[in-house]
């Protein structure tokens, strides 16, 4: 699973091309089996979007695997009998992956109170895969009451204890602190990647950046760091001038992932200068303190220095407020407001966002996607029309 491109390659396009190909292979490939894990890892640990404190299982020598559904190549053979047709695709295809045996090597699978369908995955896991540690991690939906950090730390500590019991060894503070340092570097590199997208979006497209970020769902963070460093050097070395494309923010990809074809269609017509794709992997917005109690540091970072999404309530961050911050800091001309079909929080937010953007006079396009969709002509046409109208109004 190690990327083989040479860090000293003088051709940034070639280097980047090889890295992206590797990332795409990881996206399409299976969860690594136990005998293919890098040295120091004894197993894999699955978690559902949005955010999961990967450091805790990483410190246990388990590879954190963010389970993001089955994409549009997976045929549902089992899930229909286990989840209703009116449940979102990512939950159904995640169940399918499990029922088809594609996740059987996981030590555990943790979901979160982001929505009710996601919480039900905890029960589905418990009933069908009793050998795995199936849990709901209760990340607080009220981070505003004093005591939220203490509760979050207690919940992390509980998870730590449950993982320790499952694998039969302890997760010590030193290992946790080491993991935090590795992930801090990862957070810093991802911030850099997004900064390039805001300042020089012609150097890295949305699809490319997405593939680079998503690779962390299948590789250790330390390896991802090395790959990102290499990729960032190549991105900076890229030649090419800005094209006449509108700058847009893309939202709605916080949980279910749009097919890659959707992102490619957006790239064809717009510069995506910020997005919420895989925001859970970028959830903590600053370095986690590397001194002191590592569990407390993770909890405090979750409550005090974290991103925002439609599935996290926080009085300090209204949904309209954080979207407008994204628009302002990325100097976007417009917003593409998407939602996954059957996603209650996403569909609710889509209404609120589009009404707000109407009110403040920011141009936007409303799209609904589904991870399993395979026809993109209509969406492509909508995007082209939108981009053309934006260019016309901007000029």
């Amino acid at each position, binding site marked *: 699973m190690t990327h083989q491109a040479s860090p000293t390659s003088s051709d940034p396009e070639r280097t980047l091309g090889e890295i992206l190909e590797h990332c795409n292979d990881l996206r399409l490939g299976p969860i690594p089996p136990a005998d293919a894990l890098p040295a120091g890892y004894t197993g894999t640990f699955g978690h559902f979007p949005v955010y999961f404190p990967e450091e805790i299982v990483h410190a246990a020598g388990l590879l954190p695997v963010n389970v993001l559904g089955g994409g549009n190549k997976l045929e549902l053979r089992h899930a229909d009998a286990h989840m209703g047709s009116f449940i979102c695709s990512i939950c159904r295809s995640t169940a399918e992956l499990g029922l088809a045996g594609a996740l059987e090597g996981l030590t555990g699978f943790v979901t979160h109170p982001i929505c009710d369908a996601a919480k039900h995955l905890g*029960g589905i896991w418990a009933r069908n895969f009793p050998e795995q540690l199936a849990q709901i991690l209760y990340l607080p939906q009220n981070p505003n009451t004093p005591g939220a950090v203490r*509760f979050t730390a207690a919940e992390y500590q509980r998870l730590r204890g449950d993982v320790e019991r499952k694998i039969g060894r302890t997760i010590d503070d030193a290992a946790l602190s080491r993991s935090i340092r590795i992930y801090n570097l990862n957070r810093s590199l991802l911030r850099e990647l997004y900064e390039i997208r805001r300042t020089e979006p012609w150097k890295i497209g949305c699809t490319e950046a997405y593939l680079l970020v998503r690779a962390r769902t299948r590789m250790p963070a330390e390896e991802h760091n090395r790959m990102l460093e290499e990729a960032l050097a190549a991105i900076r070395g890229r030649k090419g001038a800005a094209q006449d494309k509108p700058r847009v923010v893309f939202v709605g990809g916080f949980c279910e992932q749009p097919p890659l074809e959707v992102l490619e269609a957006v790239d064809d017509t717009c510069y995506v200068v910020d997005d919420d794709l895989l925001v859970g992997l970028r959830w903590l917005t600053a370095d986690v303190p590397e001194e002191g109690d590592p569990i407390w540091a993770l909890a405090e970072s979750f409550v005090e220095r974290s991103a925002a999404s439609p599935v996290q309530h926080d009085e300090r961050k209204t949904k309209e407020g954080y979207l407008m911050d994204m628009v302002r800091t990325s100097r976007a001309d417009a917003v593409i407001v998407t939602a996954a079909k059957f996603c209650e929080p996403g569909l609710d937010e889509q209404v609120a966002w589009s009404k707000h953007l109407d009110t403040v006079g920011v141009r936007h396009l409303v799209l609904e996607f589904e991870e399993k969709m395979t026809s993109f002509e209509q969406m492509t046409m909508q995007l082209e029309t939108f981009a053309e109208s934006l260019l016309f109004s901007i000029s």
Partner: protein
Amino acid sequence: MTRAASESTASIAAGEFSAHQEGQRLFKNWYAGLEQAKARGEKVANVFVMGNAVEILRAFDFQLVFPEINSLQMGVRKVSEEFLREAEDYGYSPDVCSYVKADVGLILREQKHPAGLIPSADIAIVSNMCSTFIKWGEIWERMLGTPTFVLDLPGQRGPRWQVRPGDAQHLTDARWVEQQLRDLIERCERITGKRFDMDRLAAVEDRVNRMVAHWNEVIALNRASPAPFNAMLDGLTYIGIMNVYRGTEEGVDFMRCLEEQMRAKVARGEGRVAEERYRLLFSGTPCYVSMRRLVELFESWGGVFAYSDYLTFAAGGMDAGELVYDTSRPLESLAEVTALAAQRGLSNQFFAHERLEEQISDFAVDGIVFHGIKSCRFVSSGMADTRNYLNERLRIPSLYIESDLIDPRYWSDAQIKNRVDAFFESLQQRGAGGAEAPRPGPRREEERR
């Protein structure tokens, strides 16, 4: 005692207690109270049926709006579709919770509900027990400027989750809930201009304790065969009172009379249906636009819903055992009980097989009916899987039907009737429902406890 309570007692003293009529009267009074709230200078709170801190709000004399009940009432009154269409025209997807959309329709109609004018709230309490509650609260924040307080209740984390009162996990969760309740109290003080009165909270809790004690007995009485009430018809009135009148003398009176009535029916051997042939468990929520029709489809075969998990989670989870407030330490106890109720009576919906296994035995049912709700992921997402699991483990006959809470466009009468009929035919073939039909015996009382 309030005027309403005096009336209630008077009507009950006449010895003609009709739960249905008394329920209707109490609901009418509640809506009338809401309509007059603003004129009387009363503060108003929006709350949900799960995880709502009603005890604290009552101690501050808030008038309580239950938006879920407003929405379902639109269904019962057969007007929900027009509110739903209005919300869809506004921009909401057909896939969004129909309760939410009906409420958006209500807001767009300036809160003019068929039962009366609904006052805008001064605060909304939303819990994470149903994630849509939070999104719903955010809609009020935007459309009505209602301040929202999210009461974050740590739920059941995994299978076979054993939390006992006073153990370390319970105390951790209760401490978090208590901190939030203290935060909520401060906000209520600012909104009402009143100082929080711990004695008033204790008095409310005492009434809740009495109400819940009667409620638990009412539910337990339906273990008798024949069952004295239908959980999915009569039970809907009862849980409505459990919610709207929780912590009031009217609520205590209603539940006391109900228990007496049910006890008398059981003593007489009087069942809900003339000839009870099949005892059933209903998992999920009703389709309120067709609730009588749904029950009729089953009762016409002699099938009665002896229990429904709806009676637990939609009544605040208070029948989940050991949930009695210690009124000598009201706030701490409220936090402790709320944390336990969240896990035993609400969020265990996500691990529903565990509770259903017990209830199949407790209520000696012949089969389970799962009602998948197209726009409610809280109820429906794990239902088909739970059904598979129970079928494999217990070989219990089950039926899965689909419609919606209040969207009549998803009620397909002929299709549902066909499925119900086929279900009963299969039950007949299995030998259930006859005099000699084998039935699992109810667990002994000591086992249950």
